[in-house]
């Protein structure tokens, strides 16, 4: 619940800026409940027509990796070079790749 003096919990906000794109983390805000988090997110992070969809997630509900785990967590993919586009040698005159 909220902290002292009625301080509202922190929410992380994710905005889909247009159809076809992922929701992207844009920042956080404080709100007393989920509804308020969404209305605040609309007001704060989409004032300039930036979004078509918003997610609000309680910050303490997010499970996050810690930097200490970095090696075991992220290194295994480091050697999967075939996942990276630069692995593939494409002649320069092939368009749109």
């Amino acid at each position, binding site marked *: 619940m909220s902290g002292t003096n009625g301080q509202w919990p922190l929410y992380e906000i994710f905005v889909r800026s247009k159809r076809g794109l992922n929701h992207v983390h844009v920042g956080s805000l404080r709100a007393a409940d989920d509804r308020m988090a969404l209305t605040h997110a609309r007001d704060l992070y989409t004032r300039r*027509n930036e979004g078509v969809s918003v997610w609000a997630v309680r910050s303490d509900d997010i499970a996050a990796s810690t930097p200490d785990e970095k090696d075991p967590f992220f290194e295994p993919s480091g050697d999967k070079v075939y996942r990276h586009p630069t692995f593939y040698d494409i002649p320069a005159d092939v368009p749109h790749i």
Partner: protein
Amino acid sequence: MSDDHIHLSLAEAGGADGDARWAFGTGFADPLHGVATALPEGVDGRALAACCTALGDDALVAAQRLAQWCTRAPELEEEVALANIGLDLLGQARLLYARAGQADGTGRGEDAYAYFRDAEAFRNVRLVELPGGDFAFCVGRILVQSAWRLALFEKLAGCADPVLAAVAAKGVKELAYHRQYAAEWVVRLGDGTEESHRRMQAAWDQLTPWLAELYEDEVAEGFGVSARSVAEATRAVLAQVAEAAGLTDAQAAPVPGSGRAGDRTEHLEPLLAELQVVARAHPEGTW
């Protein structure tokens, strides 16, 4: 220094995600784009002007009250939300005044209506004039205003004047959000703590005597809006919110008189004095 051209370095820093957020006014559609402004056959220009002026006055005075909240909101997020609502209403007022000026044949611009009419000439409902009060009164009034105006605009969006219809259609989306924002807050405050309940109930009691004026308002009767159906829709919304918020309806006698007929509270004159002070001090000025 590598930041010599601020705009270039901004573009780099911001990546390629377009310039829709660049500056105020970009990425926005003109709400009246492609709408014919000629007065259609069978629409009475004077009646249309009167309707637009009255609805414009409601919006302008309400926006001014919200502007007075600026830097005084209970939380920064609410600061942003109240400003959004104020800006929407201000936008509605500007479009309505512009249409009034076209319809009454004077060609007056929006500022002539806002800055160079005295309190006696305003035709807003008196609810919007009442002083700011506390946050409970603020959200309570937004709820009443927006529930009523939304019901009215939903009907007005189909009216015979294409400009007024387009303004109303745009307003419907805005007002639906205002109503949601305010309803959520009324419920929170009604349910929250003993103090917030007491304040919300007091605000509700203070608003009640001014409702009759809204329910009887026939300003848009000539444009396909029946006062009775708007009143019914508004009552239903308010009853639903009041129940969720645990508020009880007081049996208060309506305040006599009508803002639409030119009756004013003592609060409008000082409000307009503030609004008009600079414009009137420099009548030849350009801004």
